[in-house]
């Protein structure tokens, strides 16, 4: 079983090798652009006001780790959306894979493993960027790689399950429009969730992103986490596990009927 999942991972890597340019440029350039515009541009204003005192650290240091978590979410969500839909429906490549001894759970774990690899690459590069901007020394930045991978996968697995039950791509568009984008903006990346209206605050707390942000901020800049780090990890592992089980079940129901 484990080896079959590795074959899936290998095939995904081969795909990536053929189409890496577009995604690499955006993965590598985006954090730099954000940190320049929001961190240095906007950050200067924040720090000049009451920002630093309220946040407990300079804005750039607040933003950098948050941005890593948000990027992990986007990579994880994106990987579980369109490529999965293509495998199920648009190109039916999953049908081709399932005609071999490879099973649905191998497709799911292999795909998640590949997403994990991409997240590792992205987060490692992020550690370098954090160092370049003087936000975190390299060892601390690298310490944030693991939580970033975990946060990304905590999105990827449940979204894979979601995609598996979709009839059309409209559901994916809605997921990003009403789920991922709002999370990106309101889940503690750009400002602390305490700034949200009280009614919305618990909403941010139940999403994996907030837990990822807390862990990464703790790892990269030593900011105290809201909960015990183990509790944040447990929540993320929970999302990942439940998502994985659901994804396998729904894909089996859909593809092996």
């Amino acid at each position: 079983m484990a080896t079959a999942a590795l074959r899936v991972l290998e095939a995904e890597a081969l795909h990536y090798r053929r189409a890496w340019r577009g995604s690499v440029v955006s993965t590598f350039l985006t954090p730099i652009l954000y940190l320049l515009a929001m961190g240095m541009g906007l950050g200067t204003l924040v720090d000049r006001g009451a920002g630093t005192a309220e946040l407990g650290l300079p804005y750039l240091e607040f933003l950098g780790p948050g941005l890593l978590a948000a990027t992990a979410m986007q990579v994880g969500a994106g990987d579980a959306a369109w490529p999965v839909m293509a495998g199920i429906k648009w190109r039916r490549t999953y049908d081709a894979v399932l005609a071999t001894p490879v099973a649905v759970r191998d497709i799911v774990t292999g795909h998640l493993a590949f997403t994990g690899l991409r997240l590792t690459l992205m987060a490692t590069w992020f550690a370098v960027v954090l160092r370049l901007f003087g936000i975190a020394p390299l060892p601390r930045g690298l310490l944030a790689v693991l939580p970033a991978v975990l946060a990304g996968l905590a999105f990827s697995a449940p979204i894979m399950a979601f995609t598996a039950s979709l009839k059309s791509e409209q559901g994916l568009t809605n997921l990003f429009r009403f789920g991922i984008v709002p999370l990106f903006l309101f889940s503690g990346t750009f400002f602390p969730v305490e700034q949200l209206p009280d009614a919305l605050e618990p909403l941010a707390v139940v999403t994996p992103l907030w837990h990822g942000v807390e862990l990464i901020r703790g790892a990269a800049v030593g900011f105290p986490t809201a909960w015990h780090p183990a509790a944040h990890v447990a929540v993320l592992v929970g999302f990942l596990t439940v998502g994985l089980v659901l994804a396998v079940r729904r894909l089996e129901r859909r593809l092996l009927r």
Partner: protein
Amino acid sequence: MTDDPLVAARSLTKRFDGFTAVDGIDFQVRRGEAFGFLGPNGAGKSSTMRMIAAVSPPSDGTLSVLRRDPVTEGPAIRSRLGVVPQEDNLDLELTVHENLVVYGRYYGLPREECRRRADELLAFVQLGDRADAQVESLSGGMKRRLTIARGLVNRPELLLLDEPTTGLDPQARHALWDRLYRLKQQGTTLIITTHYMDEAEQLCDRLVVMDRGRIAAEGSPRELITSHVTRDVIELRFAVGEQDTHVATLDGLADRLEVLPDRILLYTADADVTEAAIASAGVRPEATVIRRATLEDVFLKLTGRTLVD
């Protein structure tokens, strides 16, 4: 032991949300033969193939494939099967050669072995010169050949072909038939679905005629024709509106009469005798075609419908 069927189905049934796509069919496929499912759209051919391929659990009945149970031993069965699905699902983002290598890897073959087999199979399906092309740039016939090559990458004992030549031009079809014939010669057991009676006649040693989820008849193409229809068929076409006036006269001139919307078919053991009788009865059709009976006629007799509408 060697006489054990490679595939055996009893009362095999497939239901989708209450709709019965395969309705309790029985059949056996022997090692080394080419076995066909001939039937029109919606007959249940693909549903049956997917059950044999161990990717669709039967709703009822029993099925054994390579002496194993497809529900509990799916991976073991699939490792010895080759599958050519009705619709090509090649990986459009990879090259022709990569498609085969990646697929070989799914069967757990070493990378070097995958590359060797890919070269060999591309030569076999005459795509050697397109090895590095993107799949997207291939013609329909080339894609089909590549899908067949992909289905052979694990050197399967049993190859399932769901409508292998639908949508191809006559030349491409004949080229494909030739490859399939060679595979059979090399000892691969073939299961083929088709709604082309000429394909069934060319390729299949034995076949079942399938309609609306049931099997209407079974046998070799020859047997089916001799046991269900006469040797010769005369097709008569008349001017618009005239056909009906001749039915009564023609009835009795042949063993059997089949009245279709656009023509009348007369089934007879000797076309010359019947043609003369038609002429002396004073019937003057616009066009007359005399031909040998085919599986299409068998299908028409058994189901009252034509195969390809």
